[in-house]
């Protein structure tokens, strides 16, 4: 009986990495599945077991552990980070003059992908004219940022005669994102006086010019989400992995221990000296990549058990620099709450009828 209980616990709480596949992938802890377990939802139990540990946080990226939550909900946060947290991006490009070799549409696409530093929470979505989704209303100070790119390339009069280096010969021959200037509309100049709206990075190459070529472009940034276009995605990456768990089923010594150590990422397994023989010990399974290399060694594959903790998510969020990563995660959680509220409101109003 004890063996069965142990096995059930393993099925419920661990994902097993086997030689020919990954076992116990799906969540099974639903009411009625396991006799003797109460699997009905209990908020207090969840609150008791749930835990977040911030491992690393700086202006562009963060890593944190989210423990005690189901993959369905953790995955919802990840998906929202990628596709549903809004940002501002260039949506409309008005090209008055473009004599460079970059075609208008290619240039417009390149401009759209430049991250724009502007807090999307301070802007509204652009309204569509009622009844027709294709016709948009004229932008205003609450939903549009206007940017301008006006640059002309010329010969450098001070360049030496025998020079062949374009950097010396020409002026303005490289167009960078720093050449994009913000044109405040309405009261924006007063409201955003501290934040300074413009591209996040100054050194994104937009186009190359030769003497006589010029660009004269006005751009409108609007609020949008990554589901509509990837340029609105606020993250470079947002991903999670499950915490690896490596268990040695029997003592591993000598040459086998050396080989075992090399099967895993650095720092996972260390060798201890016990009475002159080297004995392998799992020190820290967290950095392991779960490559399953050890299962290729016939003498080693039966002495280790590879698993992952089902409810321990190691999140990595890398921001594009528009908002700090911790703000992005809080926004993502709020988006999921808004979704719930939207349908709760709809349920209430449909029952009134």
């Amino acid at each position, binding site marked *: 009986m004890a063996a069965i209980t142990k096995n059930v616990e393993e099925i419920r709480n661990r994902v097993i990495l086997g030689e020919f596949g990954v076992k116990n992938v799906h969540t099974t802890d639903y*009411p009625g599945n396991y006799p003797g377990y109460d699997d009905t939802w209990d908020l207090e139990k969840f609150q008791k077991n*749930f835990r*977040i540990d911030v491992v690393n946080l700086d202006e562009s990226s963060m890593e944190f552990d989210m423990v005690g939550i189901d993959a369905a909900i953790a995955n919802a946060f990840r*998906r929202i980070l990628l596709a549903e947290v809004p940002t501002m991006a260039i949506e409309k490009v008005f090209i008055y003059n473009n004599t460079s070799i970059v075609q208008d549409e290619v240039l417009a696409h390149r401009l759209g992908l430049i991250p724009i530093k502007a807090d999307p929470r301070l802007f509204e979505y652009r309204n569509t004219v009622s009844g027709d989704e294709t016709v948009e209303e004229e932008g205003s100070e609450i939903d549009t940022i206007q940017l301008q790119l006006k640059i002309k390339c010329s010969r450098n009069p001070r360049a030496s005669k025998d020079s062949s280096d374009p950097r010396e010969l020409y002026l303005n021959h490289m167009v960078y994102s720093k050449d994009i200037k913000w044109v405040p509309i309405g009261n924006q100049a007063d409201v955003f006086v501290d934040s300074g709206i413009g591209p996040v990075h100054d050194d994104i190459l937009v186009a190359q010019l030769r003497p006589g070529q010029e660009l004269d472009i006005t751009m409108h940034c609007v609020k949008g989400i990554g589901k509509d276009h990837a340029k609105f995605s606020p993250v470079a990456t947002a991903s999670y992995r499950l915490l690896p768990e490596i268990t040695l089923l029997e003592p591993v010594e000598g040459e086998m221990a050396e080989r075992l150590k090399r099967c895993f990422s650095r720092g996972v397994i260390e060798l201890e000296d016990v009475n002159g023989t080297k004995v392998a010990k799992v020190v820290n399974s967290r950095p392991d990549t779960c490559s399953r290399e050890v299962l290729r060694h016939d003498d080693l594959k039966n002495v280790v058990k590879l698993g992952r903790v089902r409810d321990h998510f190691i999140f990595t969020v890398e921001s594009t620099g528009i908002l700090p990563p911790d703000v992005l*995660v*809080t926004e993502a*959680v709020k988006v999921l709450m808004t979704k719930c509220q939207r*349908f709760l409101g709809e*349920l209430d109003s449909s029952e009134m009828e």
Partner: protein
Amino acid sequence: MAGEGEKKPVLEMVQADGADEGCVTFVLHDEDHTLGNSLRYLIMKNGDVDFCGYTITHPSESKINFRIQTRGGVAATEPLRRGLNELSDVCQHVLNTFQARVNEFKERQEQPME
């Protein structure tokens, strides 16, 4: 076709002929696995629910069919409402915990500077 000025539907209820109110397919517009799977998980955790599942009707349609079948004559709207409330509570707890931990982390980082 939706007429001029008519609002796009957010939530629809579809019932088979002769089915009771315990077997309902809800059509959630503008939703996908993000809400679908997390909501399904919480509703399946409800003891009154016999079956809960969802499908994305077609990749080019942005809606999901969300099916709930209940036990013992409970109306299908009840587990849906409860699931939405529970998911909202979970989010609130995650949000509070996350903000508390981030603030702690930031304070800890500032201290060695002093």
